[in-house]
């Protein structure tokens, strides 16, 4: 393998992501030293190995004596699943509406954009609180909230792009060739916004992980005892002084995962879509 070629890729973020998010998410069953739900009540609140603990629990244990490392590893599954499903749903809805609004313009556009306004104006966390209060915290509720929060951003961005793309001559050419509206939207316009969707989706992974963590922190994320990262931080937050490792390491996992995803998203954006200005 030529090194110079490798250097063109953001190796560090990819490595971190693999180590923190993907490998644990896929192989936690085999990699994690312990069952993440298994309590070792005699080993409660054990510090990490370099803080006077044992190799058995490398990153220490929580207040029920569960292995922090194993829980973080399994938590990656939830981070990944929620991001993947939530973003997929949000992006799909948003992209579709954005495409339709930008292409059709007129009334459709106005209606969709007002919906976007409404969605942006409703504070997402409050919405989640209400959801959770109505149906109890659940994986599905988190996905719904994530999708609800995200779709509007996608719709806005995609619509703006479609508005300019539809004025490009190739769209006119496709119509001159006799293509139907559906064909034009799906075969000509959609491929031109796919990059944007991909870049935005990547950049949103961080947002979603943080949102999930915030929801868990408020007690309205995925329910206990699921080792979702946000819940892990929230669970240990009282004990920051005496058992800092319980929330510190999940916090670090969130930080690193989000940071790497963002770096990757940046890199993707530079590669795929230098014009996209999105945060």
């Amino acid at each position, binding site marked *: 393998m030529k090194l110079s070629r490798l250097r063109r890729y953001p190796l560090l973020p990819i490595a971190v992501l693999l180590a923190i998010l993907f490998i644990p998410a896929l192989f936690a069953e085999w990699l994690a030293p312990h069952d993440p*739900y298994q*309590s070792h*009540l005699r080993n*409660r609140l054990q510090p990490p190995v370099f803080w006077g603990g044992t190799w058995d629990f490398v990153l220490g244990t929580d*207040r*029920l004596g569960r292995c922090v490392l194993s829980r973080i590893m399994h938590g990656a599954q939830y981070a990944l699943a929620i991001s993947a499903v939530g973003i997929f749903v949000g992006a799909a809805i948003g992209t579709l509406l954005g495409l339709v609004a930008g292409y059709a313009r007129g009334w459709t556009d106005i209606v969709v954009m007002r919906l976007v306004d409404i969605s942006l104006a409703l504070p997402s966390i409050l919405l989640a609180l209400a959801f959770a*209060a109505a149906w*109890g*915290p659940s994986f599905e509720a988190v996905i719904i909230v994530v999708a609800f929060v995200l779709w509007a951003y996608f719709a806005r961005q995609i619509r703006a792009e479609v508005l300019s793309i539809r004025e490009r001559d190739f769209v006119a050419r496709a119509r001159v060739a006799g293509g139907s509206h559906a064909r034009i939207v799906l075969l000509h316009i959609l491929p031109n916004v796919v990059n944007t969707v991909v870049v935005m989706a990547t950049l949103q992974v961080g947002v979603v992980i943080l949102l999930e963590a915030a929801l868990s922190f408020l*007690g309205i994320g995925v*329910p*206990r*005892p699921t080792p979702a990262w946000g819940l892990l931080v929230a669970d240990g*937050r*009282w*004990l*920051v*002084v*005496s058992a800092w490792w319980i929330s510190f390491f999940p916090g670090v996992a969130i930080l690193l995962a989000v940071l790497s995803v963002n770096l990757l998203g940046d890199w993707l954006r530079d590669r795929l879509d230098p014009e996209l200005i999105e945060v």
Partner: protein
Amino acid sequence: QAAGKVVLALDPPTADTNLFWNGTGERLPCFQALVGHDPITGKYNNSELAEEWSANEEFTEWTFRLKKNAEFHFGWGRVTAADVVHSYELTTGPDSTINSIEHLRAASVEALDDHTVVFRFETARTDYAFQHAGRGSMVVYSKAQFDKEGVDGYVSKPAGTAAYQYVERQPGAGVTFERVPDHWQGAVPDFEMLELRWIPEPATKLALLLAGEAHISDLPREIQADALAAGKAIVKSKNPAMSTGAIFNGMYGKTGDPAYRADLPWSDIRVREAMNRALNREEMIEILYGGRGEPVPSWLMDSRNEGYVPELKERFEGMYGYDPERARELLADAGYPDAFPDPTIPIVSSVLSGNPEFGTMAELLQVYFEAVGLQTEIREMDWATLGNLGRSREAYLISPVRNAPIRPTEAALVNFHTVRGTRYGGYESDMSEGLADKLEQTINPQERSRIAQEAFTYLFEQYADMPLAAVFAELTVDPTVVKDWTFPGVSTNSVSHYHLIAAAE
């Protein structure tokens, strides 16, 4: 001696209001009720507005005689029987949300003279003094203020009679009080000012305490150690303030109740016993309460109340003791899991103000249950949702509970073990209903005690719940500011007797 301000960082109350009858019975430091409590024993005494009280033979008439010199704050005058009648009417009005309001209601109320009030009932009410004491009690407002300013007056500056008087409230943030100059009882609290500050986040409470911004806080026990390590101290209620455990909801066993489900795993007494035997209570008390809790054989029974059965304590180890082996046998015997269409045991994890341990308790239950082969699932829900399920009689789940503080036996039995106790769907059966009814109708103390004992023994033998421990209310204090606080642990939120907060030198 005269110290400045003491700040209490506390969980936000369920209802944050000066209008006592719109709350859940948490009493503000500026108010007093008719009946007081001894700060150490928790027994009723005349330290508040009533000089003395008595009931007639049939317990259908209760008479309270007021102290003559009791005086409202801000110059609203002496406390009279009219104020009591006025407060009674307010408190039992249609918008009342207060605890046990039905128990407070009387057939009629009458001011016999300026300082005598009589409550009359259609049936016997043996426990009526309780309704005017620490928990779920009625506090006395000034009628003069109401006549002049209406409810708005109470909202902006309610006059009470206690040693602290109201200064201001920031809704959702806290309430401030100040020492009453020349209090009618001659009480002189150590602190000039008293601030209750609502802090939902335990870590923030701890930080406040450590930063010296708050001096007393109801920290969860889990982090008390951190505060102790930083030189803070613990003050405890003088008596156990509550008894905790977990209950089997959804046991709607009264004959003919359509909500009854025989196929629930815990409808089978063997499963109930197995679940009880799965619990290592010593370890749980260690984890949940840092070892500072007394195991109890029945979480509703208390030596201070009617119907205490001392033998249950001895029988406890034999029937409820930690024995996973036996638990497994029992389960096998009951045919668990195959005999049940839905063998999963749902455990509620909830946040209840004042009970930060409930979440952990749910997880612990899960750990122990799974260790003996029970299948479990944790359901997070808030208190309101749980209550809603109970009320619609669909609460098929296991939930941590507390009996806080100890309430009279009759009310406790009715609440948790009859159809009338609407909020929970605890263990109900013809037997429990019958015993509760009988208790209500009986006025003879010996007879009552016997019935209550029978009820507790019955419930004990039915494995009607999973008792855990009697625990004290514990507050973490800054010893450089607060030396001590003597309170009996009898109010809804456990604390009372604010005027006894003692300043450090």
